[in-house]
């Protein structure tokens, strides 16, 4: 039966506690939220979704490419799915974006399950959100970020057993203003009531089988307010919103990751999504343990970096210097066409293997640096390596294109990575404090934002510590 075969998630490592807001502003407006997550400067919906997908796929490797990849997001405004397909090397997979509202992820799951049920094979569904609010808006306080991914297939261990949907035309959920800031919706009460109704319809008489809840959460009270008439109190406590903040379409998805991590065979999970006038409840039954990496709630991992409020503003770009003209001298200028031609190299380390001496070559060349032979074939290099050397780029040592990154996040580490397969590559080392970088540190490839040029976001090669506990 069609179901969830594996799952994964990605949460950026940067957080801010509610009490930092309270210290700075005198109050923290997000009820029941203790802390929330902000993407690093080089992260966005694309990079978060990719990391979530990679972790999900690691749990369920397969020989054939999935037939469809659906990328959902409430906050992304540019194509995500196609970049994900390129980065994963999925040449024949249909890449679909569902954007613009927080119901998108649940829709993606339902559409994906239907496709699997019709014999399409595997479908990848990922949601990623990074909603941004205006600094002087209380609604901004609770806006967080995150991504979750699910591999849907014919042998899934979590199957859909019931669903209920309601459409209300006069509901206005959170929406973007002219400057792109997310503003609170009107009539949240009606939304909460709708969530209660679809939940009741989906659960029916089987409330006692429900062991987990994956509810869309604007803040820490949403689940309680929506579901208290359907489920016992202990199941309606605040979920991921408590530490991630409001994550748009990823909200029910991250909660599903948490629930799948805790669920036992035979139990059901109630998922409720809401956005743009649509409300859907899905009841999942766990028929087999679903492979995935669960979200560790409660204890922060060693790598989590807590920001002060000024650091948070700076990371959001609220303190950027608008007078610096960044277009006068492009220190890292590579024309768009040249860049597009090397996307396979940058996203997936597609280099070469020398068919004469078996040496791996990167970047691609006309002749093998080891033996001089010219019989070279494309080859995706192992993404792991060790740091042969590194430096920390301070103000004054960065090309102009990276000034925006420095303004937001300060000094950054650049490493000379010795890849497992032999070649070396120069790249930024991300997801770690520059002061914690060491020679010989094991690292692994990640796709991150480099900068924006000619209106296009340039994604490229970076490395992060292999251990997420660094």
């Amino acid at each position, binding site marked *: 039966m069609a179901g969830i075969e594996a799952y994964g998630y990605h949460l950026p490592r940067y957080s801010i506690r509610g009490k930092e807001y309270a210290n700075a502003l005198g109050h923290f407006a997000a009820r029941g939220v203790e802390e929330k997550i902000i993407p690093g400067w080089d992260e966005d919906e694309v990079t978060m979704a990719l990391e979530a997908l990679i972790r999900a796929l690691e749990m369920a490797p397969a020989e054939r490419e999935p037939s469809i990849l659906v990328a959902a997001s409430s906050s992304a405004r540019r194509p995500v799915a196609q970049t994900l397909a390129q980065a994963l090397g999925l040449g024949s997979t249909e890449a679909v974006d569902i954007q613009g509202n927080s119901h998108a992820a649940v829709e993606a799951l339902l559409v994906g399950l239907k496709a699997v049920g019709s014999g399409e094979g595997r479908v990848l569904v990922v949601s990623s959100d990074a909603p941004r609010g205006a600094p002087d808006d209380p609604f901004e306080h609770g806006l967080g970020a995150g991504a979750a991914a699910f591999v849907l297939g014919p042998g899934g261990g979590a199957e859909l057993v019931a669903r209920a949907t309601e459409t209300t035309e006069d509901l206005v959920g959170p929406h973007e203003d002219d400057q792109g800031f997310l503003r609170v919706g009107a009539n949240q009460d009606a939304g909460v009531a709708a969530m209660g109704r679809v939940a009741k319809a989906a659960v029916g008489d089987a409330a006692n089988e429900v062991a987990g809840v994956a509810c869309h959460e604007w803040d820490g009270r949403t689940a309680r307010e929506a579901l208290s008439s359907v489920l016992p109190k202990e199941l309606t406590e605040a979920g991921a919103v408590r530490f991630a903040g409001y994550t748009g379409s990823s909200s029910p998805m991250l909660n599903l990751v948490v629930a799948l991590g805790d669920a036992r065979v035979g139990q059901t999970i109630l998922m409720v999504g809401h956005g743009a006038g649509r409300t859907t409840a899905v009841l999942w039954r766990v028929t087999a343990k679903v492979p995935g990496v669960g979200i560790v709630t409660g204890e922060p991992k060693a790598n989590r970096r807590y920001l002060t409020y000024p650091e948070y503003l700076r990371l959001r770009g609220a303190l950027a210097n608008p007078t*610096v*003209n*960044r277009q*006068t*001298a*492009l*220190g*890292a*200028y*590579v024309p768009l066409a*040249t860049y597009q031609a*090397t996307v396979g190299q940058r996203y997936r380390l597609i280099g070469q293997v020398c068919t004469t001496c078996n040496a791996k070559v990167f*970047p691609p060349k006309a002749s093998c*640096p080891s033996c001089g032979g010219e019989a070279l074939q494309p080859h995706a290099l192992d993404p792991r390596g060790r740091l*042969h*050397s*590194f*430096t*920390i*780029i*301070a103000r*004054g*040592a*960065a*090309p*102009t294109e*990276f*000034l925006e*990154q420095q303004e937001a996040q300060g000094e*950054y580490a*650049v490493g*000379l990575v010795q890849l497992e397969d032999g*070649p*070396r*590559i*120069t*790249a*930024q080392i991300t997801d770690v404090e*520059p002061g914690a970088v060491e*020679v010989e540190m094991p690292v692994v490839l990640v796709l991150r934002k*480099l900068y924006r040029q000619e209106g296009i976001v*340039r994604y*490229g*090669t970076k490395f992060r510590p292999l251990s997420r506990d660094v």
Partner: protein
Amino acid sequence: MAEDVAIVAAGQSRFGARREGPKELFAEAWRACREAVDKGFDPLLIQEAYVGSMAFGGYQLGNTASLPLGYIGLPYLPSRRVENACASSSFALRDGYLAIRSGAADVVLVAGLEKMTDLPTERQKYWLGVSGDTEWERLAGTTFAGTYALMALRHMHDFGTTREQMAAVAVKNHRHGALNPKAHLQKEITLEQALRAPMVAHPLGLYDCCPVSDGAAVVLLASREKAKRFTDAPVWIRASAAANDHLALHERPSITRMEATIRAGKAAFHQADLSPRDIDLAELHDSFTIAEIMALEDLGFCPKGRGGAFVESGATQRDGQIPVNLSGGLKAKGHPLGATGAGQAVEVFHQLRGSAEKGRQAEGAEVALTHNVGGSGASCTVHIYGR
């Protein structure tokens, strides 16, 4: 071969943050060179001109050489811009040397010219980065400070080189620069100042990096037959050698040595039939302090990995085993990118004829070496000179 090509005159502008533009700077260097001619000089004797330049902020990339040469009254002289980043004018020197060795010319003008301080910071940074691998190094977010920092950190890791040893290079070069009226920075610094300075790209701080400078230098070369028309005390070019290397640091098997320096050095010593211990003074390419340390090792002045200790021991001071950068080096004399190589030849010309300032003149010097590197080591020349 040892006495085929001579430097018969040489002069330079003051290096520094100059108000003057590139043409005026060139004229200043040209005048200084003419004043260094011992006997009479007719500019119309010059047959070819090689002008090393990155081309001042990109606003004269085309036909660069014609501009200054027209300004000084030699518009019809066959001339061209020679470019290999910071080694531009030493490659120009090599091209001039080859022209005379080939017999095609007897009198050749070699020059270096750069104007950098009139650019806004962003544009300056651009020009400081163009000589690296744009696609794979710049896109990682590095300029040259970052690339040399990667080398320095690994050198410290592999050989125990210290920040103090690197700072000692800067202190020495500033002491010499303070005695050189043509130098950009004419102030001594202390070891503490160097170590306390802000970081630019860890482990390199502000005083590990050479300044951004304007300047020009002109060197007059002549064949053996023609040299005596200009002077009875020519400085012979006993060897001219060059080598290149992979542009990107990550393509090189080792980042703690410069293959281009090693190869050019070996070829130069072989040509001159000399060894490092025969050299009385050297001008080495200290764009960053670690670069001088690596050059000492790569040219064979000290064993591999011992460059830091070598500097610390005082061996490269004026009264040491091998005085290095008595001009102040790139660090204190300055680094107008395209002019540096020719500037090193100007220094050697004065040192070997005993006309450098007191306090930084090497006593009884007969044989000198210059080492000039493009960017992070993708190109390099080594020249050896003698009386």
